[in-house]
């Protein structure tokens, strides 16, 4: 018997919901997506992009910001890789394998950017400069994963941490030097998948088991101050006005509000 592949519908929105989920969680989808925007780049930027001239203060501030980004990406890399073992189904495991690749790339391009700015030992500098609040967040995320708490860990990583990164990277890209901007723009494209996976996965779990809402609410209460402290410090180092901090805070809160956590 010959099996013929079903052609895609003329309008993608006519896809069966399960077929849509299978498609967007697949490694094949991820591979074709990243090929579109990473092909031809070297460490996240076009090879011909030249280093901008920065003052000593601008350079120092950017190094601190990138150190925080490196720590955030390290947390996400550790979190996503640990989550594969406790993911409840095959689609989530495969998606997380693509997220691990994304997070590894993000860490690598940010470390490379630090070297480009003259930092001799980027990993030492990350340890020295990274926000204490973010370091605490990282430890708490590792604990949640080690405790095999799927919902709480997904909430901490793919909703809270990814929403924060998405909002900050997107805003920073608008005012960054050309090389940092290109690196950030590529990372933001990956982050869209990560925040969407977290919100939709948790939304489905909450719909099926509303009793977990109280536990997630407790995790949010615990992690919110760490996220907001990190946001405040990062906005200061990027050199954004205070109004931007409030706007970024709102962007972060939007996703948790959609899940019903005010």
């Amino acid at each position, binding site marked *: 018997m010959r099996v013929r592949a079903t052609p895609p519908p003329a309008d993608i929105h006519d896809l069966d919901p399960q077929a849509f989920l299978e498609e*967007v969680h697949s490694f094949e989808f991820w591979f074709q997506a990243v090929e579109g925007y990473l092909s031809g780049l070297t460490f996240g930027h076009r090879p011909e992009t030249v280093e901008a001239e920065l003052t000593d203060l601008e350079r120092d501030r950017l190094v601190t910001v990138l150190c925080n980004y490196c720590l955030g990406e390290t947390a996400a890399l550790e979190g996503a890789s640990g989550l594969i073992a406790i993911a409840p189904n095959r689609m989530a495991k495969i998606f997380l394998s693509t997220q691990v690749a994304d997070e590894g790339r993000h860490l690598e391009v940010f470390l490379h950017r630090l070297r480009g700015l003259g930092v001799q030992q980027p990993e030492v500098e990350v340890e020295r400069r990274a926000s204490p609040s973010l370091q605490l967040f990282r430890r708490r995320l590792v604990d949640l994963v080690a405790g095999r708490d799927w919902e709480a860990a997904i909430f901490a990583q793919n909703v809270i941490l990814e929403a924060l990164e998405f909002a900050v990277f997107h805003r920073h890209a608008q005012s960054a030097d050309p090389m940092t901007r290109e690196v950030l723009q590529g990372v933001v494209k990956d982050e869209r998948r990560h925040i969407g996976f977290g919100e939709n996965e948790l939304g489905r779990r909450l719909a099926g088991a509303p009793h977990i809402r109280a536990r997630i609410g407790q995790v949010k209460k615990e992690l919110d101050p760490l996220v907001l402290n990190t946001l405040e410090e990062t906005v200061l180092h990027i050199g954004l006005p205070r109004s931007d901090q409030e706007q970024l805070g709102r962007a972060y809160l939007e996703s948790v509000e959609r899940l019903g956590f005010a």
Partner: protein
Amino acid sequence: MGDLSEQEAAPADDTRLRFILEDTGFDEVPKKYRRFYRKWEGAGDSLAPNEVICPVCKVVIRSTRELRPGDRVYCMPCMSRLVVVRNEAGTLEARTAY
């Protein structure tokens, strides 16, 4: 979040405007899906009758037909399933349907 059951049902008629979609350079999904999405260009940009903004990742979602309340749309860049609703201002928007 509004109650989707209170929204108008999507009419099963054939009177909707149809649109031919072209690739706008959106590169975050595989090539075969690119024409269904575009970037929101900010102030000065506007939505066509076949477009809504994804509330999760802010990408513009496009359909080959005019959108109406009750329609299902997918945001592939962020993997979200959404339902089109009419908001209090009378305009169409998409809401997450987990």
